[in-house]
């Protein structure tokens, strides 16, 4: 019987140069402190020798064009490439220097997809979508110089309204847990993004973050109180700049009712950086 052996959520622009450019030296120092905690989390993850790592993250209008915007999408196949952006700007530069190709855990991805359809989740699938910083910045920080664990990338549509609800993402996480339990693998799972930043996705509000809302979310996570989270609305997440918490909701559903430890929380003004690890039974 399979087990979830590691679960964590974290901010996903893990790039000291980006935050120094945007927020000065304090930005660099804070993201470096956050990355130090994520590296320590990675050492604990690798000590569990996971067979696969599920990564729940969002697309920044990179992998999917306006041809189709899937609510929930499972990346299947044998390999995934990192996104390549010529003349990259801002967060897209975080990918530079990373390996071009990563192995996937094909069997686990197929089980999540096929069993999900049977269970009532009308999941999108992709054989071709590349992955951007939302996946690779945390994955590479967790692994350091170690070989990268076979991945199962899963996208949640966090930005293009209408998004899936927090309750639906939580329910999808329950599905992930049931697939892992039914299989033979030891599995790690991470969710990326956040915490509060870019409320309403409006440029005049870049620089605002809702720290009180973040602390409320983290308080619920620390206590393992997951019922209030399922009552959140996508409207609340938009207003408070918590769009990417939808990714976290899938992870929370996968590990509920486990309580979490906040390894790092830092206010930058532009964003509240966070790294959280769950205490699994």
């Amino acid at each position: 019987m399979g087990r979830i052996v590691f679960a964590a959520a974290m901010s996903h622009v893990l790039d000291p140069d980006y935050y120094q450019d945007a927020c000065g030296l304090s930005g660099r120092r804070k993201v470096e402190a956050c990355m130090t905690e994520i590296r320590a989390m990675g050492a604990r993850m690798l000590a569990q020798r996971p067979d696969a790592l599920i990564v729940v993250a969002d697309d920044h209008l990179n992998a999917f064009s306006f041809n189709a915007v899937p609510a929930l999408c499972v990346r299947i196949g044998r390999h995934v490439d990192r996104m390549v952006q010529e003349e990259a700007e801002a967060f897209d530069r975080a990918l530079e220097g990373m390996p071009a190709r990563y192995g996937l855990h094909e069997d686990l991805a197929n089980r999540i997809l096929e069993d999900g359809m049977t269970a009532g989740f009308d999941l999108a699938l992709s054989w071709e979508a590349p992955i951007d910083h939302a996946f690779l910045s945390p994955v590479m920080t967790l692994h350091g110089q170690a070989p990268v664990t076979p991945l199962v990338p899963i996208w949640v549509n966090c930005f293009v309204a209408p998004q899936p609800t927090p309750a639906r993402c939580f329910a999808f996480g329950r599905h992930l847990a049931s697939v892992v339990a039914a299989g033979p693998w030891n599995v790690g799972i991470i969710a990326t993004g956040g915490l509060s930043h870019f409320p309403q996705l409006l440029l005049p509000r870049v620089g605002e973050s809702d720290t009180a809302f973040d602390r409320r979310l983290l308080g619920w996570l620390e206590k393992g109180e997951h019922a209030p989270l399922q009552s959140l609305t996508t409207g609340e997440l938009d207003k408070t700049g918590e769009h990417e918490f939808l990714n976290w909701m899938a992870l929370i559903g996968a590990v509920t009712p486990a309580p979490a430890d906040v390894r790092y929380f830092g206010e930058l003004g532009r964003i509240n950086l966070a790294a959280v690890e769950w205490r699994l039974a």
Partner: protein
Amino acid sequence: MSRYAVNSLLYRLKKERAYRERFLADPAGLVADLDLTDDERAAFVARDMRRINALGGYLHLVMSVPGLAVHVTHAERD
């Protein structure tokens, strides 16, 4: 507001270098036949990403189109 036209144009400007170069050489010509409102067309011709965001352009696109991206910086915090 032409949500699709604005954002599909931003997406192509980000992803297609040749299209971006055509735009930079002649923005008015490139947007002339697109299904944009007059306000949207004027914002693109002016390369005004703040206005484009206010008109419905997705934030992550207006912050990442090469050569046109808006960069917002912040004061140091302790």
